[in-house]
Each structure stands twice: as C-alpha cells, then as structure tokens.
C-alpha cells in the first residue's frame, strides 16, 4: 500500500547551500536514500519544496476563495518535502521514515486512500 512521508522541519535550522562545506555530503545522503527506495521497489515519487516564504494559500470558505501570502498554518515547522512510497505495511513505511537523512524534524507518515476497486 502507498504511504506519504511528509517531511516537516524547522526552517531556522539551516541545511548547507551549494558551495557550502558539507553540501556534497548532504545532497548525496538524499540521493542515496532515493536510490535505496528505487532499488527496494518502494519509490513512487518525491520532491523537495522551496521554503515556506514562497508559499501562497488559496482558502475556500462560504462559497468564495481568498488568496493569502504564506503557508496554510503559521507553525514553527513547515512542510519541506515529501516521498510517496509503496510498501507492504506501516512498519516498513516507518522504517523508511526513520532512515530519512533529516538532521532535525519530524516525518508524518500517512497511508494513502486506496483507489483500486472504488
């Protein structure tokens, strides 16, 4: 079954930028992780998001919509990226979430609603 790994982290904890010391290492940990997912046949998709300062929220309420600058909720931690994976059990999904090379942060693991047969 499919699981979404939502990567949530505090944007004030900076990760290395291109050119910084340790950037190569940082990036290679992520590409290795993605490669491991692919090798295990678990990879469906995954992307990193630009920082929450680039977010725009469209809110639907009372039949109309408003467009607001910023993410949908003012939280200390922001959605930074996601992986969509396909594994057999929650335990396997939690294991992949544990292995994510995030220094600090949280991974919300959510089963994707099954679509087959509906």
């Amino acid at each position, binding site marked *: 079954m499919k699981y979404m790994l939502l990567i949530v982290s505090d944007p004030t904890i900076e990760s290395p930028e291109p050119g910084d010391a340790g950037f190569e290492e940082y990036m290679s940990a992520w590409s290795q992780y993605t490669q491991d997912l692919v090798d295990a046949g678990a990879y469906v998709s995954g992307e990193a998001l630009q920082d929450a300062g680039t977010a725009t929220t469209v809110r639907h309420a009372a039949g109309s919509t408003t467009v607001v600058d910023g993410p949908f909720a003012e939280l200390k931690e922001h959605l930074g990226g996601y992986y969509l994976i396909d594994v057999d059990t*929650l335990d396997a999904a939690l294991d992949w979430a544990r292995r994510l090379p995030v220094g600090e942060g949280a991974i919300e693991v959510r089963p994707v609603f099954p679509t*087959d*047969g509906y």
Partner: protein
Amino acid sequence: MASAGPALTRVAREEGGRLLALLTDRLGDLELAHDCLQEAYATAAARWPADGIPRDAAAWIYVVARNRGVDRLRRDAASRRRMQAQSRVLETGVAHDAPSEGGVSPELIDDSDDAGDERLRLMLLCCHPALSRDAQVALTLRLAGGLTTEEIAASLLIPEPTVQQRVVRAKRKIRAAGIPLAIPADLDARAEILATVLGFIFNEGYLAHATDAGALTRAELADQAISLTAAAADALPDHPELAGLLALELFHRSRDAARVDSHGRLVRLGDQDRARWDRVMIARGFAILGRALAARQLGPWQVQALIAAEHTRDETDWARIVRYYDMLLSMTPGPIVALSRAIAVAEVEGAEPALAEVERIPGLEHYHLWHAALGDLRERCGDRGAARDAWARAAELARNPAEAAFARERGERLRRSM
C-alpha cells in the same frame, strides 16, 4: 441445561487472543476476524445450553467464526477491492465443515506449538507505537485479554462508550494504516511497550483494588494483567524484563489479603500481618525473578521486582533498597523514583536527611504521596504543625478514597495531640 456463561468467558479470556490471531491470518483482516469471533461467541451462547459444551470449545468457536468470515468474504466478493485483497483466502477453498464434537480444525492442530506465538503477535500488535497509550491498553484488554468493553470500562473506571470508541478507532487505524500482525523487527522496543502497558493495567487493577466500589472487577483486572504478563514472558524468554514485571506483579498481589483491614482501611506495608501474605505466590515470584536475573540484562522492571522481593523478607534490608533505587534512578530518572528512594533513606539514615531529600525533589506539588512523605517525615522530625499541613494537602490530592482517609486520619491524630 448447563449455563454456557463461565465456559464461554474462559474461552474468551484464555483462548480469545490466539483465536483472533489465527482468524486474522486466515481472513486477512483484524476487524472482520474480531466481528466473526464475537458472532461465534453469540452462537455458542445460544447453542451450548441445549447442545452441551463441546469438548474442544476453542476449536468449535474457531470453526464457526472462520466459516462466518469466509461467508462474508464470499458475499463481499461482489466488491472488487475486497475480492482482490482477500483472494488468497477464497483460492484456498476453505472446507465448509460444520463444527461438531471433536471436530478440531487443522489450523488449530498445526499451530498448537505456536499457541504462545499467536497470542504474542496479537499483544505486540495491540502495543504498536502508532497507537496511543489509551488505545494500546484498551486493545490489549479487548483483543488479547478477551474482556468485553463493559468489563474494561468497569475496571478502568471510564465510560463504556469511551472504551468502545478507543477500540473502534484503533481497529480502524490498524486496518487503514496497514499495521501488520507480525513479530516486529524492533522486537526489543515493542516488548518494552508491552511491559509498560501490562504494568499499567496491573497498577490500575492493583492500586485501587479493595478500596472502591468496583473492587471486584479491578481485582480481576490485576489477575488479567498477571495472566497476560505470564503469557508474554513465556513467549519472549529472551526479554527478562517481562519476567521481571511478572515477578513484581506476583509480589504485590501476594500481599493483597493484608493490604486492607476489616474496616476497609489501607494498611501500610510495615504494619501488615505477614501471615496473610500468599507464600506460594511469593515463592513463584522469586523463582521467576531468579531466572530473569540469570540472563544478566538488568532493567527497571527487574529492579522494581528486586525491591518488592526485599519487602517480602522478614527483615527488610533498607540499605539494599536504597541501592536498588539508585540503580533505578540511573535507568529511569524521575521525581517519583527519587521520592521512593528518599523514603528508604529515612529508614537507613533517619528522618532528617530524608526530609531534606524529599523537600529538594521538584515537580511533585500535585502528587499526594509527596505531601504524605513530607507529613510523615516532618512529624518524625518533631515539626508537627508543618506535618499537619502536609497531611491535609495529601488528603485533598488523593484520588483513592482509602488513601485520602489515611491522610486525613494522620492529620487528625496530630491535631488531637497538639
């Protein structure tokens, strides 16, 4: 016409967990398996009084439940999703044999060696870290312990709809999130949660036992915890903490008859009539603790069992108890352990150093036993006014009526003698 009630309750409690695990394997769905098991119990309740109780009651229940499950899957086969997910069950073409006297199904025979394993997998599922502690407790009692939601509600002193909701939500999450009924890769961590959940259940039953209206059901809860812990310790012999917890439970339970006097008042350990302790249970506790310690993987449950064991001796070695609390503090630091240590210190070094230690422990302002310890130690140091205040506060904060009465009485006695 025999009543089927006691026999059914026994099957539900002793075999229910294993039956549920087997059915879940067979039907591929915990919720469906649980529903069918409940229906099989209902069928048994209706048929056994007239037909007699089958020789192998568990096998009878299993066959009825499994047939129901297979029927339901066949009926639901119209829904493509279900049919795909469960096709392996339909493909195996389960024989639709009617249960009969002695009609033991092959699954039960094949798995007889793994009986402990079946129940264990179910207990470990109930204690999955993706479930909340409340849900883990309710599920363990409901699914592994075979208690009804009504019994769980009565023994945990929470409303039945709350229990029902917790069980329903947890079962829904197990299905929707794909939590597997399997021995987990992180077995050590899961066994630790299992011990915590079982320890909690035991405490709930034990602490309030004989001191409130639901005393009887709560005593059953403590026994249920002991039976589940014994099953877990048996199935996981390499996890001596479970055996440690079992020994601890047995040591506590052995003192049951002596804990409350004829007026329903709490009797402190030192004042208990030791002749009323259950020596057989204590011996069993020592044997189990001895085997656990031999594994040389000491943990907090084993240390707590060592402390409880020390309290069963004729002469309590308080210095040794202080050392055990030091070990416990290094494993699980916390104010409550620090408080227990300070109380033991009073017996070794006297009330004054102990009082200083108790006063230094932060964060227990709302804990009745901290105030009770202050009351007792201040009284022993001769500070009667402050002692009385502390006992009054302890009485206010105590949730358990017997403990509140005890604190009030101590305060009252001080007031009279002032």
